[in-house]
């Protein structure tokens, strides 16, 4: 990496640097830093939902974000999304309700790096062309052969080499160590819908601060740059396919800014009081997070069912005894005993269900 721009600095005043009235804050539990409105200090950390946000200095680059992907979902749409998310959970924990999730929801923008760079170097690759060959399928019926010609398309590969002197703008590079996890939870964003950064669009949102500095993000940035270069070399060579692309290049005049991605973060607590974050993609509405069933509720319902079964069994036994004197009661007692046995088995379901569901969710 050459001409690395080391313009990161530790600051307590974002307003001086970026001109927005936000304050750096961190969470002692997860160690992540955010830029928040002062009123959010002391509130739950939007990353882990366990710790509290405390004012602390943060390492920031001088340049404000360059682009952001705006929120595309309304409050009503978020409600609908959460309804669909919570509905399948039977015996959900008490805290896992739409109202509580919406009430605790925090708008968060999370960052990706946008890197600009010049690429000067020499490249080589194998390029592929389609060519067509004639084959045939023959069939023998009766006494003669019938031929059906088949034209197959195959690829021919040839080497190519050359030089490249190109500038690339806005190469997307992860800026968070848990970028892949977040994308896994809320899905990909349509980055072509990004608009120029504007403080007015931030509202009361929390901004997460990159924990992957450009120095650490560089290997991924270089891979993405090479990929962009490969696509352009393919275009330059006017070929259909390219493979085994390699480039020996100088990457000059790098410039790093941020792209902000919208997310709604909420949380709920389980039976043991442990907080679980729920993340919603602010652009597509995809929801991610663990939705747990309550084992406590399961035991409760299993106990109630088993209690009813015991009661029905006792009554049935009494009826069976009485049946010795009044024979018609024998039948009623028998049916009652059968119902009691069914209820005993039914009591197993709520006891086992939360365990099975939570295990499946964790997987």
């Amino acid at each position: 990496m050459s001409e690395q721009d080391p313009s990161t600095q530790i600051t307590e005043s974002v307003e001086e640097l970026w001109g927005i009235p936000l304050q750096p804050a961190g969470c002692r539990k997860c160690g992540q830093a955010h830029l928040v409105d002062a009123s959010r200090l002391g509130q739950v950390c939007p990353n882990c939902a366990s710790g509290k946000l405390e004012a602390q200095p943060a390492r920031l680059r001088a340049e404000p974000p360059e682009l952001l992907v705006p929120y595309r979902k309304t409050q009503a749409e978020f409600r609908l999304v959460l309804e669909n998310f919570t509905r399948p959970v039977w015996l959900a924990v008490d805290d896992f309700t739409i109202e509580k999730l919406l009430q605790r929801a925090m708008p968060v923008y999370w960052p990706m790096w946008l890197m600009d760079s010049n690429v000067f170097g020499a490249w080589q690759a194998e390029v592929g062309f389609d060519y067509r060959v004639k084959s045939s399928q023959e069939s023998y019926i009766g006494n003669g052969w019938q031929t059906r010609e088949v034209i197959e398309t195959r690829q021919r590969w040839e080497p190519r080499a050359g030089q490249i002197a190109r500038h690339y703008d806005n190469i997307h590079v992860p800026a968070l160590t848990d970028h892949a996890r977040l994308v896994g939870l809320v899905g990909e964003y349509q980055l072509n819908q990004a608009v120029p950064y504007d403080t007015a669009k931030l509202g009361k949102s929390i901004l997460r601060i990159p924990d992957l500095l450009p120095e650490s993000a560089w290997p991924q940035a270089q891979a993405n740059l090479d990929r962009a270069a490969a696509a352009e070399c393919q275009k330059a060579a006017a070929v259909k396919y390219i493979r085994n692309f390699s480039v020996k290049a100088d990457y000059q005049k790098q410039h790093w800014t941020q792209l902000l991605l919208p997310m709604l973060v909420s949380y709920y607590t389980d039976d043991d009081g442990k907080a679980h974050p729920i993340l919603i993609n602010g652009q597509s509405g995809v929801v991610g997070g663990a939705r747990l069933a309550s084992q406590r509720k399961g035991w409760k319902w299993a106990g109630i069912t088993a209690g009813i079964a015991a009661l029905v069994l006792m009554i049935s036994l009494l009826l069976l005894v009485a049946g010795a004197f009044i024979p018609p009661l024998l039948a009623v007692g028998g049916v009652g005993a059968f119902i009691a046995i069914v209820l005993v088995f039914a009591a197993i379901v709520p006891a086992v269900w939360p365990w099975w569901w939570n295990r499946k969710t964790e997987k």
Partner: protein
Amino acid sequence: MSLDLSRLAGWQPPSNYQAVTSALDGITVYAPIPESPKEEEPTAYKCPQCGATTRFDIAAGGVACEYCGYTVPAQAQKVGVNAERSEFTLETLSQADKGWGLDRRMLHCDTCGAELSIPEGSLTSICPFCASNKVNVRTAPAENLRPRFLVPFKIKSETIGSGVQAWLNKGWFHPSELSTSSVVDRLSGIYLSFWTFDADIASDWKAQVGYERQERYYDSSSKEWKSRTVIDWRWEDGSVNTSISNLLIPASTRVSRVILERLNPFKLNDLVTYSPDFLAGWQAQTYDLTLPAAWEKGKASMRDKAKDACYADIPTSHVRNFSMSADFSNEAWRYILLPVYLASYAFQGKVYQVMANGQTGAIAGQKPVAWWKVWLAVTALMAPGLLLGLIGLILSAVGIGVLLLAVAFVLLIIGGVISVIIFKKAFDSEAA
């Protein structure tokens, strides 16, 4: 966005690369220089020591001067059956369909300055004025339609000559003048063009297959229980994969295919890369059966092999309503030259061909038949039966006549069978 490429001084493309058009500013593209289908200049073979004409010498395995003994090994590499194959691309098929055309019919002899007319389809020429050898591979419609591999001559013409003479002398029903004819003197070595084909064939067959079973039944006429064989038919199907390599199809229609078949096998393990050195002083013919036409013949042969493989997959010999499909894949071909000694001669107004495999020495050809000898032999074979039958008829009034008739019948049958065999051999001998 493009930047200034001149900042990248010092980079050199690989040595065999040339610049090609780039669709984007700021990116240069270099590609390997394609091997252009070069029009090979005629090569004249002259001894650098004594100036005499040189030719490929079988014993020396290279180009040799028979006057001063100067020898140069032929510049070629042994590739055997792994010689590179080509695919049936639409481009090649369309070019192959055009054949070699009729261009470059005239050749200038650098030795004596004569203008020579090259026979159509010929790759070599001997100047009739100064006897210099020339090898001239004319412009092929595509690079891979030039001969790229060949099997060199292994057997000397003297050896073949004595073999052909012995072959001509063999057999009693040929004219006796044949053994004293000058056929052997007309033998000349020639490289004939062949196509080789490869393919994998996935075949699915379906048929009613019959299984024999012994059945007991009551014969009301003889009033007893007997056994008989009945066939139970049931539908069966199967799949067979067949892989066929190096199927040879002659690419010349000027020589008898039947005789060429009898010269097989050629050992393709001896294939070498093409070099004009091998053709010096020898004749060579280009193909006149185009690749698509030859492939149709090759495919027909392969289909039959696949069909035989399907039949072999069926556990019994009772088969009916047979149908199959054959899906060809990995089809490939080569254009090669194979060594053959060839002589044509006329006998009583009819032209006959004799050929010998220049690699193995196998000999095959047409021989005229002295039909009077054949008829004489047939008469001699049938006469005992006919005479005995006649005597048997005369003596039929007496008891012994029937016995003679029976013996005559047997003799006629034996005589008839031998006569048919003689006739067949005689016809085959003349057939081409």
